[in-house]
């Protein structure tokens, strides 16, 4: 700590690097077989807001044979000091160097964190490429949503865990302890690891390319290595381990509150949404479980807010009774309830009214597209009237600001859809005035991101709109949204472009990542640190064309770089959804409509679980 004490006064937000938070777990290093460093490739405030970290920290540290400590990407100023003083990357529990651990486990939440993964390995004194690491180096593993297309990181990660970590980690640690007892060499360990369900060892797969650059073949190089690695899925959200004593930071973080996941998955089927596809099926927690966890967490953390998290919390079938029970039990001691993701419908607005104890200044609604036609294309089951009545209710109930989220560059988008965005924003403003919101305070913020085609979605075959087109459309919107009370925000098109390249990329991008790291790319998700010209240079050095990845339309029969990673969704379903999208046809939620045939329930032998009662529609026995 001595060197650290000298460095810390010189950096911004030193509390990022001190540890010592409430509920931190420190174990006797010598009495534990497996030591895991959980590495989050972004700053402390972002990483500590990630529920997955808390879940895995809890599960691993509950075992007597393993420990997990945390490490985050040091901000630029800290990295500079660490390199200057040869202080290697260390964990916050024991301040031990990350390279002393058995396993370094990265979570991949976002493509733009890949450069940080490489930089953190380097800061740890671990060779960034897996083939340059020896027996003395930790096993470098990765999971999270981006692991559903692991290929761009195939050169750097020894093995990926596909799917839900809390389901896989037990098996994986058991395997590792056994392998360690047998003193297995890393090469043999990886071969055996590939047999653990959900484990993907990229070095055990050979990828062949055609002359035009397309992938012609992906195959295991050894017997016993699965051709398709299927994701792991939690079957019972009531029985799976949930952190009862999460680490409570002493410094403010992005989501500084109790997070209780009330359901996992989403049955809505928005065609651009990767989370909605890879976290299927819907599995709800029983109200009793939620209430029990909430009571424990209030007592164990001292937080003043409980957030009921999921991809779409108003879809949680018993949501109303759970909210009422939580308010009744906890509002007295100043604890409020929040719902981070609400849909644009009346039911959501009722919920919003119920939970807001303290009036918040702003409410966020996500219509995603400006016209009904395009909302049908993306299968966002929201009408203009839904949106307008939600806006009106919000203003009438005292909110003074409404944020509207849209995407541009969606497949089939035309100027009419952009006009639709402008129309909705102006209409929302007008409704606000009508509802009597105070003129000076009244604000409608339009946030526009650019569509990024993501693997395992019905839009995975679609090209991204070019940067030039996206910029043009942003300018068009900017011109149309000039009015007192309207605020227009949009994303950097170059970042969205790189995101698409790496989302849809293959193994050859490993060379680009390595170059980018050498050129100093890091924290690319932070616009002030994103240097587009460095990335272009990294591509030039590798002899690759980024546009080839982002702007190409794949054929249905193309072999996609992520086809050997199994989500349980059938390709037929994705094709059918893509075709329906192009025809402007919506598909109902499988809870209320007929089974959509995504293939997941039969493929993974998991059924949706609804805590609020039976499904409306029975599943057919066999799904094509």
């Amino acid at each position, binding site marked *: 700590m001595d060197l650290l004490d000298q460095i810390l006064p010189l950096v911004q937000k030193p509390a990022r690097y001190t540890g010592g938070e409430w509920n931190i777990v420190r174990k006797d290093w010598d009495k534990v077989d497996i030591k895991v460093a959980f590495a989050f490739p972004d700053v402390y405030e972002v990483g500590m807001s990630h529920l997955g970290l808390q879940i895995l920290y809890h599960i691993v540290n509950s075992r007597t044979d393993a420990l997990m400590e945390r490490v985050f990407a040091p901000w630029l100023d800290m990295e500079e000091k660490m390199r200057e003083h040869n202080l290697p990357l260390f964990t916050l529990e024991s301040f031990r160097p990350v390279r002393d651990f058995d396993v370094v486990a990265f979570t991949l939440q976002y493509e733009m964190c890949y450069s940080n993964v490489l930089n953190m390995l380097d800061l740890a004194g671990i060779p960034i490429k897996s083939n340059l690491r020896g027996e003395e180096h930790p096993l470098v593993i990765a999971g999270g949503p981006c692991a559903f297309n692991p290929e761009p990181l195939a050169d750097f990660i020894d093995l990926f865990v596909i799917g839900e970590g809390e389901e896989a980690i037990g098996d994986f640690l058991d395997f590792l302890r056994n392998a360690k007892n047998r003193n297995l060499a890393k090469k043999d360990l990886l071969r055996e690891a590939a047999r653990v369900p959900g484990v993907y060892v990229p070095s055990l797969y050979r990828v062949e390319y055609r002359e035009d650059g397309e992938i012609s073949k992906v195959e295991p190089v050894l017997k016993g290595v699965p051709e398709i690695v299927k994701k792991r899925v939690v079957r019972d959200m009531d029985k799976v381990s949930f952190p009862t004593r999460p680490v409570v930071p002493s410094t403010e973080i992005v989501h500084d509150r109790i997070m209780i996941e009330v359901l996992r998955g989403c049955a809505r089927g928005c065609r651009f949404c990767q989370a909605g596809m890879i976290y299927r099926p819907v599995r709800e927690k029983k109200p009793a479980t939620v209430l029990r966890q909430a009571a424990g967490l209030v007592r164990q953390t*001292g*937080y003043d807010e409980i957030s009921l998290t999921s991809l779409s919390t108003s879809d949680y079938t018993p949501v109303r009774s759970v909210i009422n029970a939580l308010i009744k039990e906890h509002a007295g001691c100043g604890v409020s309830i929040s719902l981070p993701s609400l849909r644009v419908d009346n039911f959501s607005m009722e919920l919003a009214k119920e939970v807001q104890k303290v009036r918040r200044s702003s409410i966020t609604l996500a219509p995603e597209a400006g016209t009904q036609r395009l909302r049908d294309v993306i299968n966002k089951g929201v009408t203009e009237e839904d949106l307008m009545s939600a806006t009106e209710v919000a203003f009438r109930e005292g909110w003074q600001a409404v944020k509207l989220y849209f995407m541009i560059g969606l497949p089939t988008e035309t100027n009419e859809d952009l006009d639709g965005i402008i129309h909705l924003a102006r209409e929302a403003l007008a409704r606000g005035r009508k509802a009597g919101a105070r003129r000076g305070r009244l604000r409608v913020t339009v946030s526009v991101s650019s569509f990024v085609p993501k693997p395992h979605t019905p839009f995975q075959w679609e090209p991204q709109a070019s940067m030039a087109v996206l910029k043009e459309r942003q300018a068009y919107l900017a011109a149309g949204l000039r009015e007192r009370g309207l605020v227009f925000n949009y994303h950097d098109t170059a970042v969205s472009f790189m995101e698409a390249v790496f989302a849809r990329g293959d193994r050859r991008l490993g060379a680009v990542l390595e170059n980018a790291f050498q050129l100093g790319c890091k924290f690319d998700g932070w616009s002030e640190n994103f240097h587009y010209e460095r990335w272009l240079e990294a591509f030039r050095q590798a002899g690759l064309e980024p546009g080839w990845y982002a702007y190409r339309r794949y054929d249905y029969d193309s072999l996609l770089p992520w086809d050997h990673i199994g989500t349980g969704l059938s390709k037929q379903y994705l094709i059918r959804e893509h075709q329906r999208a192009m025809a402007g046809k919506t598909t109902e939620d499988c809870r209320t409509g007929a089974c959509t045939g995504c293939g997941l329930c039969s493929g993974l032998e998991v059924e949706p679980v609804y805590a609020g009662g039976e499904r409306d529609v029975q599943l057919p026995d066999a799904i094509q």
Partner: protein
Amino acid sequence: MTSSYRMQYSKKGPARYISHLDLLRSFERAGRRAGLPLSFTQGFNPHPKISFAAPLGVGTAGEAEYADIELNADLPAAEVFRALSGVLPEGLRLIEIRSIPEQSPSLMAAVDCATYRAVAKLDRPLDRKELDSAISSFMARPEIWVEPKLKAKENKKRNIRPGIFALSAESENDIIILEAELKTGSNGNVRFEQVLEALVETGGLPLKSGFVLSRTGVFTKNGQEKKTLW
């Protein structure tokens, strides 16, 4: 019914880096973990009624800091102490809690001065004479002008010399330990970092590292007499 308590606590180790605003949150959360009936302000954004004597700079340890806390019940101070002691994050430690009358003057208004200690590594050992002359020539300066930390307004240079009540130094091998008593509080505040900076400029101490700082006490003054905030 509400009741007020004054606590003395220390803020060391990782807790040194908890900022003033985060410290308020840390006590609030600890209070809730302890199951204490915290009292909140009314209004748009309720916050717990916890107040501090004088903010401590991020990174400076506090050995005997004070805070007042209000509860919605009349609990024995010993019980509050027990409940809160077990739920504070690492480095925050309760030393004592006492009940105080409800309309007690605020801590903030009471503070007049604080004592500090700074420790640094030296390039070479210093003898007593060298140390004494460094300190005495510094203290002999009639005026010590410093720039404001934030370049808010121009020509806002301040003379901190009147706020430096005492300064002494000890040295052992390659370690130097400085102690100071400085004006602190809402009607004038001298930051120890500024004093040390000025001292290093004047005295040319052969420092090898930066200073590790702690505030050793916070006091109210009755004429020349220093008193604790109890």
